[in-house]
C-alpha cells in the first residue's frame, strides 16, 4: 500500500480544479457513467439484495469511481488521484480485524462476509445524542456499558459548559471534549467494565485541536478506543481530517473512517449511494488508514437512514466490502421514530435484517431527532443489539421476506415519525431502574410481534 506521506502529497500534486468543476465535470458524470457501465440498478422494491454479481459490480464501480474521478482536497483545490493498481493493492492489504479495549474487555472486531451465520458480530451501542445534564450523561453511559452483550459504546454529547453551548473551534469546545471523555470513562468505570472501548469518544465534527486535547491519556481515552474521522462532502478530503489522520496514525490508534453519503445529494439515488458508500470504505482504508469503517448514509431531506432505497444501498455497500475487501464495518442507523416507540423498533429490526446479514456488525439505532436532548434510552439499545444478534443467524435471502413484512409497519410514517421518550421518562434517577411500565410493554410487544413474523429475538 502506498505510504501515508505519499497519500498526503497526492493532495498537493493532483490537477487543480474548483469544487464545482470537480463535482460537475468529474464526480457526477463519472458516477452516472459507472452506474450505467456496471449495470447497477435497484428494482425499487428489494431491501436485502442477495445478487452477488450485482454486489461485485457495485464494488468494481466504487474502485473505478476513485480511480477515475479521484478525491478532492478543498484546501489545495486539487484532485487526489490514485491508480487502480494502488487502490486494489490497498483493498488487498486492508485490515480484516481491529482490536479494541483493555484487559478482559479487549476484543476483536472482524470484517464479516455476507450470509455468515455462525459467527458472533461485534455489538456496539449508543449514539452522539445531546444530554442536558452531566448526571444523565454518566448514567446513560454506565447503563449501556453494564449490558453484558455490549462490546463497545458510543457516548452522548455534552457540549455545554456552565449552561452555555460550546461553539465550534472555541476554547470551550476543547474543554467540552475533554469533559465528555472524562465523564464517559467515569460512566464506563462505574459499570465495572473499565476496559470497555469507546468508539466515538469525540465527535467527528470537532476541530482537530479538541480531538487531540481530549485524547490526552489522563482524560481516559486510549489508542485501543476508536477515533472517528469523517469525509466532508462527497469524496472531499479536508485538511482537518488529514491532520487527524496524521495524529492518530502517529499514536497507532484505532481510526474509524466515517462517511455520510447523502441520498438526494451529489450521489443521487439508491444506486449512487451504494457505490459512493462503498467507495468511502475503500478511501477510509487507503486515505485515512482506518481500522474499521463507520458507515452512515443519510436521506438529505428526512435526515434518517431507514427509507427503502437507503436500507438497500447500505446493505449493498456492506455486502460489496464484505465480499471483496473484508474491512470491519459498523453502520450508524438514523431512525425516524423516537426512543421507546414501536416505529423506532420496527425500523431497527428491518435495518438489522438488511445490514447484519450483508456483512455489517451490530450497531444500535440512533433516533434521527438527535436534537431532542436525553433521547438515548439504553434499554432500547440493548433490545436493538439483541435484534442484531438474532439477524446474524440469517442469510440475506432469509432476511429479505422478513424485512419486507416489517417495512410497511413504519415506511409511511417516516415523514412524520412518532415522538419518543427521554432517559428521565424511563428510568428512576436514583436506582436507574425502569419505572415506565408502558415502555417495557412496547419492547415486549415488539419482541412478540417479531417472533410471530419469524425473527426470534431472545432476551440477553
Amino acid at each position: 500500500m502506498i505510504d501515508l506521506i505519499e497519500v498526503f502529497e497526492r493532495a498537493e500534486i493532483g490537477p487543480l480544479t474548483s469544487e464545482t468543476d470537480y463535482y460537475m465535470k468529474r464526480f457526477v458524470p463519472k458516477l452516472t457513467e459507472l452506474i450505467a457501465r456496471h449495470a447497477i440498478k435497484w428494482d425499487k422494491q428489494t431491501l436485502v439484495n442477495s445478487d452477488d454479481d450485482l454486489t461485485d459490480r457495485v464494488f468494481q464501480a466504487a474502485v473505478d469511481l476513485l480511480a477515475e474521478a479521484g478525491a478532492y482536497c478543498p484546501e489545495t483545490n486539487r484532485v487526489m488521484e490514485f491508480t487502480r493498481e494502488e487502490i486494489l493493492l490497498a483493498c488487498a492489504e486492508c485490515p480484516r480485524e481491529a482490536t479494541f479495549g483493555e484487559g478482559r474487555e479487549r476484543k476483536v472486531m472482524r470484517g464479516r462476509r455476507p450470509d455468515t451465520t455462525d459467527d458472533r458480530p461485534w455489538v456496539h451501542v449508543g449514539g452522539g445524542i445531546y444530554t442536558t445534564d452531566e448526571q444523565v450523561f454518566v448514567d446513560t453511559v454506565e447503563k449501556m456499558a453494564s449490558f453484558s452483550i455490549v462490546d463497545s459504546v458510543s457516548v452522548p454529547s455534552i457540549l455545554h459548559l456552565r449552561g452555555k453551548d460550546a461553539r465550534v473551534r472555541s476554547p470551550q469546545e476543547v474543554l467540552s471534549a475533554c469533559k465528555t471523555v472524562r465523564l464517559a470513562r467515569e460512566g464506563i468505570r462505574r459499570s465495572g467494565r473499565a476496559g470497555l472501548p469507546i468508539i466515538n469518544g469525540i465527535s467527528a465534527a470537532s476541530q482537530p485541536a479538541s480531538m487531540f486535547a481530549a485524547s490526552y491519556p489522563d482524560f481516559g481515552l486510549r489508542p485501543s478506543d476508536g477515533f472517528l474521522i469523517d469525509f466532508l462532502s462527497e469524496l472531499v478530503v479536508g485538511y482537518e481530517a488529514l491532520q487527524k489522520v496524521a495524529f492518530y496514525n502517529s499514536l497507532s490508534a484505532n481510526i474509524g473512517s466515517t462517511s455520510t453519503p447523502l441520498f438526494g445529494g451529489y450521489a443521487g439515488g439508491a444506486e449512487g449511494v451504494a457505490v459512493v458508500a462503498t467507495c468511502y470504505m475503500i478511501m477510509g482504508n487507503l486515505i485515512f488508514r482506518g481500522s474499521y469503517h463507520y458507515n452512515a448514509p443519510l436521506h438529505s431531506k428526512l435526515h434518517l437512514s431507514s427509507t427503502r432505497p437507503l436500507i438497500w444501498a447500505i446493505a449493498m455497500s456492506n455486502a460489496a466490502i464484505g465480499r471483496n475487501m473484508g474491512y470491519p464495518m459498523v453502520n450508524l442507523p438514523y431512525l425516524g421514530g423516537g426512543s421507546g416507540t414501536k416505529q423506532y423498533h420496527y425500523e431497527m429490526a428491518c435495518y438489522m435484517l438488511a445490514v447484519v446479514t450483508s456483512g455489517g456488525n451490530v450497531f444500535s439505532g440512533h433516533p434521527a431527532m438527535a436534537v431532542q436532548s436525553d433521547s438515548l434510552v439504553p434499554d432500547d439499545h440493548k433490545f436493538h443489539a439483541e435484534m442484531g444478534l438474532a439477524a446474524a443467524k440469517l442469510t440475506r435471502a432469509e432476511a429479505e421476506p422478513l424485512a419486507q413484512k416489517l417495512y410497511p409497519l413504519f415506511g409511511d410514517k417516516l415523514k412524520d415519525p412518532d415522538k419518543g421518550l427521554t432517559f428521565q421518562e424511563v428510568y428512576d434517577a436514583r436506582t436507574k431502574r425502569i419505572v415506565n411500565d408502558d415502555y417495557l410493554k412496547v419492547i415486549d410487544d415488539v419482541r412478540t410481534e417479531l417472533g410471530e413474523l419469524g425473527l426470534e429475538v431472545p432476551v440477553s
Partner: protein
Amino acid sequence: MGHEELFEQLKQAIIAQDEDAVLAGVDAALAAGVEPKTIIDQGLLPGLNVIGEQFECEDIFLPELMQAALAFQAAMAVLEPKIKESGNAGPKKGKIVLGTVKGDLHSIGKNILKLLFETSGFEVWDLGIDVDLFKFVDKAKEVDADIIAMSALLTTTLVGQRDVIEALKGQGTRERYKVIIGGGATTQGWADSIGADGWAGSAYEAINLATRLVS
C-alpha cells in the same frame, strides 16, 4: 415551427438537462422572432418547474438538478444581454446573500438552495462555507440585499446565525434585510429565539419563504 412547438422543445430540453439542445432551442426561438423574455417565461421556466417537481418527488436528485440549472444558466447568458439591449429588463425577484456560517464546512444543502434561488428568479451572492459573520453584513450592504440566508448543519455552529443578526442590530441595519435560516441543526424555535424573519426546513420551503418575504 410554431412558437408553441418551440417552447415545448425548450421545456423538454431543460427537463432532459441537455445544454446543447437548450442553446439550439434558444437560437431557434430568437431566429423565429420570439422576445427573449417570452422564451424564458414560456420555454425555460416551465421546464425548470418540472425539474423542481421531480426533485421534490425524488424522481431526480442533485446532479440532475444542477445539470438543468447549468443548462438554464447557459441560456440566460445568451438571453440576458439581449433583454438589457432591448431595455425591457424586468426586475429580479430579489437579492439574496447566502452562505454557511462560521465554523461550518457543509455545502451541499447550501448549494442546492443557491441553484433553486437562481432558477426561481433571485439574484444570489454565494459566500460559500465557513463564512465570517461580517462578510454577510458587508456583502449585504454592498449589493443592497433584500435577504440574508444562512445555513448551519452543526449544533455547535448555530450561534453564527445569531451573531450575524446581532451584528446587523449593532450596525443599525437589521431592519434593512430579511434574515432567514435553515440547515440540519436549526428549528423554528431557534429561528424565533434569535429573531430571524423565517426558518425553512427544506430548500423548497426556503424558496417559498423568500418569495413571500420579498413580495
